[in-house]
């Protein structure tokens, strides 16, 4: 029987809750989010590896229970990923790189608890909004995502690269140079179109390219440790506040993050829906957007709470977004969703347009369990904030080797290769050098993240049009995003012209 669509959704959600609230599903949901949090905190074992390892164990479970647990690992890891970014400047997983920018600075100012707290709250809000999106707009949004062809992906990547404007720091010139070097790093390895190796210096280990997580851990964490080793006794790394009040974000801070919650939720979900876009892009774009609308953009990068809330929200909402093409079209947009797709197929499901209709218990049970899982994560994470913040009380001479150890484990476990650890050392020195020479590191990482996808999309677009560049500006979605990119890039120039005019007018007066 077909009723009003909203009543259908409500009925289906009630069905989903009746499934998700069964003791067994509640238990496995908790196991999933708990494991996910641990996996997110500890570098070295990402969600794809964890889900792949646990997949054989799920064959004995009911399929709905199994997908509830595996999805719990996926979104739980996003919660946990912020912890090491904030406390140690070591991104627990790729989407948490942006959190390092302001989160770590907050920790240094004695506000680690507030940063961890806002990350948990933002993740909860964005995760819940993401589930709402998954529930209400999954099929139409999935159809929209299918309109994204290479020209649109190129435009999206260009929009992502335009975020360099917001990551620039003091010198736009230096930021652009860092971005270009990052883009060059992304070209290292085998060219996917011609199978030709580029800039590999004869090393077969470089044929697969440079891993983004190795580069970011090196630049942020090892570079930071080297910078702090400059003076004996260390610089005063962290201010520690003993008051419990300062361990959590204040009401004013939560209020200040209102836009960041909305921004992170929407940007994360929309970009998550696009297969292959990746949560790192969504966190960069939401950070850039947050800075663009902020009343104090100049403070970003020095420990601004909105700079933590927006990217953390985005990378959590992105998880729900990425489930949209998986469940409604059978298209995985990331490594983790590819493994989830494999799991669904192994269990005998056919992810695609008919999945929701044919298997309402599975889909709605999963949706309802994600509401419950988000609440579990908030309850699990908030009380742990003061405990995690205590890590900063550890003396610096214990902290430095611990950070280096965690960094090595994180880099080595990417592909169990010592070469990655050498690369970690190289990027650590590069990060330190950039710091000394006042080059911002974030644009380099941005270039490395987006470079590969951008080149692929550009070359595919030009192949489609047989070399005609106009393909990029004749498609409505692509031209809209490219225009937006242009506006963002011109913003600093317009600001300079405006300041110059004001100055000239003042002098004339």
């Amino acid at each position, binding site marked *: 029987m077909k009723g009003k669509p909203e009543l259908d959704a409500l009925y289906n959600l009630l069905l989903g809750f009746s499934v998700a609230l069964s003791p067994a599903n509640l238990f496995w949901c908790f196991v999933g989010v708990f494991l996910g949090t641990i996996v997110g905190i*500890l570098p*070295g*074992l990402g969600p794809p590896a964890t889900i792949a390892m646990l997949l054989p164990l799920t064959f004995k479970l009911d399929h709905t229970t199994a997908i509830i647990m595996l999805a719990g690992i996926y979104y739980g890891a996003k919660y946990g990923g912020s912890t090491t970014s904030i406390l140690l400047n070591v991104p627990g997983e790729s989407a948490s790189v942006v959190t390092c920018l302001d989160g770590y600075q907050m920790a240094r100012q004695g506000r680690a608890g507030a940063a961890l707290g806002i990350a948990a709250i933002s993740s909860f809000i964005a995760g819940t909004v993401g589930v709402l999106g998954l529930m209400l707009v999954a099929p139409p949004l999935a159809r929209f995502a299918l309109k994204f062809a290479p020209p649109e992906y190129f435009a999206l990547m260009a929009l992502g690269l335009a975020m360099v404007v917001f990551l620039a720091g003091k010198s736009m*010139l*230096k930021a*652009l*140079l860092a971005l*270009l*070097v990052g*883009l*060059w790093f992304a*070209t290292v390895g085998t*060219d996917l*179109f*011609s199978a*030709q190796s*580029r*800039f590999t210096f004869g090393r077969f280990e470089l044929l697969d390219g440079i891993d983004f997580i190795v580069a970011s851990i090196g630049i942020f964490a*090892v570079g930071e*440790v*080297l*910078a702090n*080793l*400059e*003076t*004996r*006794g*260390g610089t005063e790394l962290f201010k520690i506040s003993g008051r419990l009040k300062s361990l959590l974000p204040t009401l004013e801070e939560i209020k200040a993050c209102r836009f960041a919650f909305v921004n992170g939720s929407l940007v994360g979900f929309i970009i998550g829906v696009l297969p292959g876009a990746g949560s790192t892009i969504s966190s960069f774009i939401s950070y850039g957007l947050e800075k663009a609308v902020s009343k104090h953009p100049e403070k970003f990068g020095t420990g601004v709470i909105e700079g933590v809330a927006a990217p953390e929200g985005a990378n959590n909402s992105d998880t729900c977004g990425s489930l949209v093409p998986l469940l409604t079209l059978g298209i995985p947009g990331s490594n983790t969703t590819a493994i989830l797709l494999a799991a669904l197929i192994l269990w005998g499901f056919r992810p695609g347009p008919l999945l929701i209709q044919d298997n309402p218990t599975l889909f709605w049970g999963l949706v309802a369990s994600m509401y419950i899982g988000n609440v579990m994560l908030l309850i699990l994470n908030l009380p742990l904030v003061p405990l995690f913040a205590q890590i900063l009380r550890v003396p610096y*001479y*214990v902290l*430095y*080797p*611990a950070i*280096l*150890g965690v960094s*090595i*484990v994180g880099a*080595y*476990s990417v592909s*169990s290769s*010592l070469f990655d*650890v*050498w690369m970690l*050392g190289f990027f*650590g*020195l590069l990060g*330190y050098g950039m710091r*000394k*020479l*006042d*080059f911002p590191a974030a644009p380099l990482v941005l270039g490395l993240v987006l470079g590969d996808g951008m*080149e692929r999309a*550009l*070359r595919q677009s*030009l*192949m489609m049009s*047989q*070399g005609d560049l106009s393909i990029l500006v004749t498609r409505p979605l692509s031209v809209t995003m490219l225009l937006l990119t242009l506006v963002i890039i011109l913003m600093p120039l317009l600001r300079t012209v405006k300041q110059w005019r004001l100055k000239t007018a003042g002098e004339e007066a």
Partner: protein
Amino acid sequence: MEPRSIKDLSSAIALAVFGLYVTIEAARFSYLTEDGPGPGFLPLWLGIAICGLSLCLIVVNQLRPAAKPLGKQRDWSTGSRALAGWLAFMGAVLLFPFLGFTLCLVLLTVFLIVLMERRSIWSAVLVALGLGIGFHLIFVVALGLSLPKSPLGF
């Protein structure tokens, strides 16, 4: 306006040389193929852009007022400590195949605490053993990660 900076000048020159290398190397790859842009397409433009922006940085730097003498010499002298730390880190990585991750982490910790921070050997040994055991228990035993092992099996 910020004064002229030797750091900006040297980094811009280094980047210009790097950009030149990228351009020359990219010119070896095909720029266009029958199907569209070739493997040299993006790197070539990247190399040119890096060269161009580096030159801009040099020009912008030279247009600034001259820096006062003395400058920031201290910046570079403190760098030697960081460099020593980095060399120790790379040395530990070099020893991974022979001593394994845990032992190398222990040695690196002792080096950082005793030689870099001038603290007592006992506190160094205590911290190093604690870290070594902690890392082994968490990552190897609990998470089952396969980290480089010494001939002794850890």
